[in-house]
């Protein structure tokens, strides 16, 4: 695939910006439009752009983790966020929300819904990158 120099340069700048934006969208999701799903999609789009510019192998390397592992970790976050309440506090149903008290910069209070949304975020990144990488490499 012939790579255009503009795209290569652009993605180098674009990638961190898009990642930052995705993170922003993801974090503000609980209070404003956004959330894990959309954030994840943006990340995946960023990596695909990078892949188109630099080759899918490079994008894969940049992602470090295998998409499959990412999916697994995402799902693990989801189920963990559900199990926290019944296992830690006890006698609460699965997925009951727990909230921390300390307020963290940028993300606010730690909570199980946040962990849940993180799981969704990671899962979506894994899924979309897996689909795109597989298809692009094969094609």
């Amino acid at each position, binding site marked *: 695939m012939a790579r255009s120099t503009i795209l290569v340069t652009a993605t180098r700048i674009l990638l961190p910006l898009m990642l930052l934006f995705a993170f922003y969208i993801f974090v503000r999701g609980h209070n404003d439009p956004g959330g894990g799903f959309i954030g994840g999609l943006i990340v995946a789009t960023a990596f695909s752009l990078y892949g188109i510019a630099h080759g899918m192998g490079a994008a894969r390397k940049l992602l470090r983790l295998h998409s499959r592992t990412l999916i697994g970790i995402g799902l693990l976050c989801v189920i963990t966020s559900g199990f926290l309440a019944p296992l830690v506090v006890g006698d*609460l149903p699965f997925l*009951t*929300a727990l909230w921390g008290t300390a307020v963290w910069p940028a993300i606010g209070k730690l909570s199980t819904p946040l962990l849940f949304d993180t799981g969704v975020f990671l899962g979506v990144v894994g899924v979309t990158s897996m689909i795109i990488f597989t298809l692009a490499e094969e094609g």
Partner: protein
Amino acid sequence: MTIPTKMLILLPILLSFLAAIINILAWNHRRWQRIVTLVATTLNLLVALRIFMVVYGQGPQAVQASNWPAPFGITIVADLFSAIMVVITALMGLTVAIYALADITPQREALGYHPLYHTLLMGIYGSFLTGDIFNLYVWFEVMLISSFVLIGLGGDRGQLEGSFKYVTINLISSAIFLAAAGLTYGVTGTLNMADLRGALAQVPGGFATTLGMMFLLAFGIKAGLFPLYGWLPAAYHTPPAAISAIFAGMLTKVGVYALIRVFTLLFVQEVAYTHSLILMAAAGLTMVIGVFGAATRSEFRRILSFHIISQIGYMIMGLAIFSPLALAGAIFYIIHHIIVKTNLFLVSGVVNWMQGSYDLKKLGGLYKTNPGLGVLFLIPALSLAGIPPLSGFWAKFVLVRAGLEAGDYAIVAAALFVSVLTLYSMMKIWQFVFWQKAPEGVVERGHGEGENGRFFRLLPIIILATCTIIIGLYAGFFFDVAQQAANQLLDPTQYLNVVLQR
């Protein structure tokens, strides 16, 4: 160890989910995947039995996921019917997993067979346990998409063709389901099924019946009702035996479960129209047309596939008659059918493993070389045909009796007629595969693979055959349970109270 009920009911779902996650993470470690699969399915059987005992002893149990009271959160609820289905699912989950140890090739395992198997089970458990109509849609989807992948996994041309039809038609069913769920919310403002029971009664102008018809179509496609079943015989005979066995046993029954659930809990406004007319006609036609297919095909698994359809008709017949006895018969039939049908598919797999074909004309002589397998085939086959004292007889007996008591003579006549053809087609398989001389060129295979393959293949078949016999011999107990489950369905006061925390 006692598990709090709040956790217990969700455990079948969560254990499967967890197993799937671990299997995704352990993607390239086949040994670990196998261990996880066996451990998870075994644990689930124990959990399922525990759920059954709790529900049997203390009545329906509910848990509000995320701790929001119904109808605002999503309620997971197990009444006796659900509990029965969960136990059966767990039993099939374990036995088929054992069979799969020998049947699923390493290539398929490398493509994600293990995680998919667990997400499939997760979807099935979820469908049986949820008390929310939209949540039911979601569970259906996870079950479906897992089945999509499983059915196409590692496939040749035939398998791809089958799965293509399967995918297309099931996506249509999903679309109808989604639209129906949306419309239901539109006219009632709620999605919780217990809440919907009261709300639908308020819906004016017979619109509830219209919604009922949409659900009938959505679930009818999954259950394989006439004339919506086209995908089933097109697809079920294509994947490996272990996969088609779990499909044959469980997937259509999820549709039947959903039909029974919504047509006892939600759509009981115009029973004379919905049940006595539409469902009754569907039941009769499904039975007859299905068995016609079975009587005339000559491929082992295609015969069995058509039988699934035919027997779905019996279950729906119980729902259509809509008396306590008939519903109990339908539930009994489901229990019996899942075990028997799964088992027959497994047997067909063993036959294929030994002689390398599913085509009746290319098989033969197994009675001479493997009389034990013959017996293992005859038990589920005769049970399917309703020969006493095996489980199928009691199921049929209760339904016929219920039909006669309700005065629905036409459907009873159809049911009896269908049983003759069922017997015929089972004997057809028997004659070709076991009695007739092996045709030229058939070589017995499968002995070179070592005793492991044989053991893992035969053990589940033996377990399931034993279940069939036990259900037949202790039919009284099983019928009693089915009757109680049916009573809970027809009078859902307990269900409503426990869900809505009244």
